[in-house]
């Protein structure tokens, strides 16, 4: 059997909407098979993975908490990927944002004022943007591959955080645990709805998604991003600078990842620890693609992937299996999303007969 692709005359509207859903469906089927192989009832497993977390108010709050960083980061990444800049180091920018934003509550902990929170958020964005500025500078001016440099910097950021919380920033009254002091109340991001848990990080995510969506759809900048991403040459004829675009897209995604970092630390963890992210920066790559690089799609996709984190925790309790299937689910999902995207541009034909037959008919 052979599989052949035939280019569609235009983009299939139907499949650009359907493809993420087909991918989700396929992931569920494969996930079910996986649970069966682990010796669990697939229906019950999938139920507690994907439905149960949605049935209680507190877990909806958890969903918003986990979705916030994913959406924020992925919205920034979508701008990068659309303009053909492959920032895959958002995890590091997330961490550096968290560190930069934590300077106030950790080092200047005695300063308590309503100004602290907004300044923390700004510092977080600055920290993430500066850290993303390194691969941006290297790509724009020294022609260095941004994929590798941005990824290498993730390890550097993780080690830097580890050093900080074990060394200079360790809580002096913390029994030698590798943690910073807990943030003062004035440095904690408030809840969005009173008596819930979800903090304003989710609000930031929605606002960022809408703003970037507006920019992509209605402004010249958005057009510039799309043109440069599809053809640098065409962009140059239109007078767009791909060098400036590298800076713009990387700094924007770095700032959003940094904001995600400080919002997570200030809203959910309330101190720095050696590990502050269960891989949000990498999962956000999946979110960006599942959302088809569209900020509004990314909001939905972020909620779906946040659900995989919650579902993973849920099955740990209800079925006594480890949290490892989460990563498998996420990886599978990205695979299916990428393969289903083929349907948007191509018709897929299964060729059951021999190639020579086709040649004989003169179709080649």
């Amino acid at each position: 059997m052979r599989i052949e692709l035939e280019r569609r005359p235009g983009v299939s509207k139907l499949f650009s909407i359907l493809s993420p859903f087909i991918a989700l469906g396929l992931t569920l089927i494969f996930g079910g098979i996986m649970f069966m192989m682990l010796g669990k009832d697939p229906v019950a497993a999938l139920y507690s993975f994907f439905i149960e977390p949605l049935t209680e108010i507190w877990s909806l709050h958890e969903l918003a908490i986990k979705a916030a960083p994913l959406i924020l980061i992925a919205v920034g990444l979508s701008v990068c990927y659309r303009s053909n800049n492959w920032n895959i180091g958002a995890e590091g920018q997330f961490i550096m944002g968290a560190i930069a934003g934590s300077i106030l509550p950790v080092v200047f902990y005695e300063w308590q004022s309503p100004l602290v929170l907004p300044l923390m958020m700004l510092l977080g964005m600055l920290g993430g943007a500066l850290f993303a500025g390194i691969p941006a500078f290297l790509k724009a001016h020294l022609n260095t591959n941004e994929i590798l440099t941005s990824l290498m910097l993730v390890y550097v950021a993780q080690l830097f955080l580890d050093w900080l919380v074990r060394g200079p920033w360790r809580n002096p009254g913390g029994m030698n645990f590798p943690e910073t002091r807990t943030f003062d109340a004035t440095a904690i991001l408030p809840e969005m709805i009173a008596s819930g848990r979800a903090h304003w990080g989710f609000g930031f995510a929605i606002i960022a998604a809408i703003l970037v969506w507006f920019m992509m759809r209605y402004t010249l900048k958005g057009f510039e991003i799309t043109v440069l991403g599809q053809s640098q040459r065409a962009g140059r004829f239109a007078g767009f600078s791909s060098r400036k675009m590298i800076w713009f897209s990387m700094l924007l995604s770095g700032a959003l990842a940094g904001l995600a970092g400080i919002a997570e630390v200030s809203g959910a963890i309330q101190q720095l620890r050696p590990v502050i992210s269960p891989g949000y920066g990498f999962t956000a790559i999946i979110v960006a693609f599942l959302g088809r690089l569209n900020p509004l799609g990314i909001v939905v996709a972020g909620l779906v992937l946040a659900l995989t984190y919650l579902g993973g925790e849920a099955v740990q309790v209800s079925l006594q299996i480890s949290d490892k299937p989460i990563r498998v689910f996420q990886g599978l999902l990205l695979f299916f999303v990428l393969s289903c995207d083929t349907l948007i541009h191509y018709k897929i034909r299964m060729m059951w007969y021999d190639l020579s037959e086709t040649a004989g008919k003169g179709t080649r």
Partner: protein
Amino acid sequence: MGIFEAMLLTIITAATPLVLAAIGELVTERSGVLNLGVEGMMVMGAACGFIATQATGSPYIGILAGIAAGALFSLLFGFLTLTLVANQVATGLALTILGLGVSSMIAEPYLGQSGIKLPQIVFPVLSDIPFLGPVLFKQDLIFYLSIALVAGVNWFLFKSRAGLKLRSVGDSHASAHALGINVIRTRYLAVMFGGASAGLAGAQLSLVYTPQWAENMSAGRGWIALALVVFASWRPWRIVAGGYLFGAVSISQLYAQAFGIGIPSQLLSALPYLATIIVLILISHNRRMTLINTPASLGKSFVPDR
């Protein structure tokens, strides 16, 4: 055994997986395919190699399992990027994410088990040569394989007809197709070779470097291997030079700690990653040199028109 000799031995052990993964990726990239999933294939090789060794008691079967796991896993990448023409960068990332997930799931029961170390193969007379003997002729099979593989790839790419075809596919898939070369099949084979080498590199980690299983035990080596290919400007022997340089950097932390040099251990752990960035900068700031060496069709999808 002198300290210098001991150092060389650790460098070799640290460098071998880098060399193996990079030489595989070099062939893949020479055919015009950029597979960013090296990390994922490597960690799959490490997991499957370890599991097979524990199950059978033979590290040699472990090696085979590692190779097979890497090759099969790379087929997934091949199917998506070659048959379904999905974006190579994104698919490579997917392969890495999936590999890290699947490996940690299947090898979870083996966490904390002590493994079986791959035995050394001692060449009778040669290994008695002072200094060089123990370094070069008292090593495990995977080390010998890594050197043989580099020599073999060098011969294949530049001296054989099939190698010429592979390079032509990587430099201009349209012309190669017009000449009647099967572009897709060539690329599938190159991707699988890359996968097999990465799998072998992974098996080295769990059978030689540290004979046990730990989650994410490849620790970014797959990415460093990718950088090595750029560093080597797609030339096989330069991979060895680069790989050993990185091996030296990555073990420097052990020695710095042993000598009690007062540098934070985290900074030393970050050295290989920082070194990678610096090397990439040095290599790529010369735009023209990069352009000459890079396979011209690298990362571009090919759909035969009919």
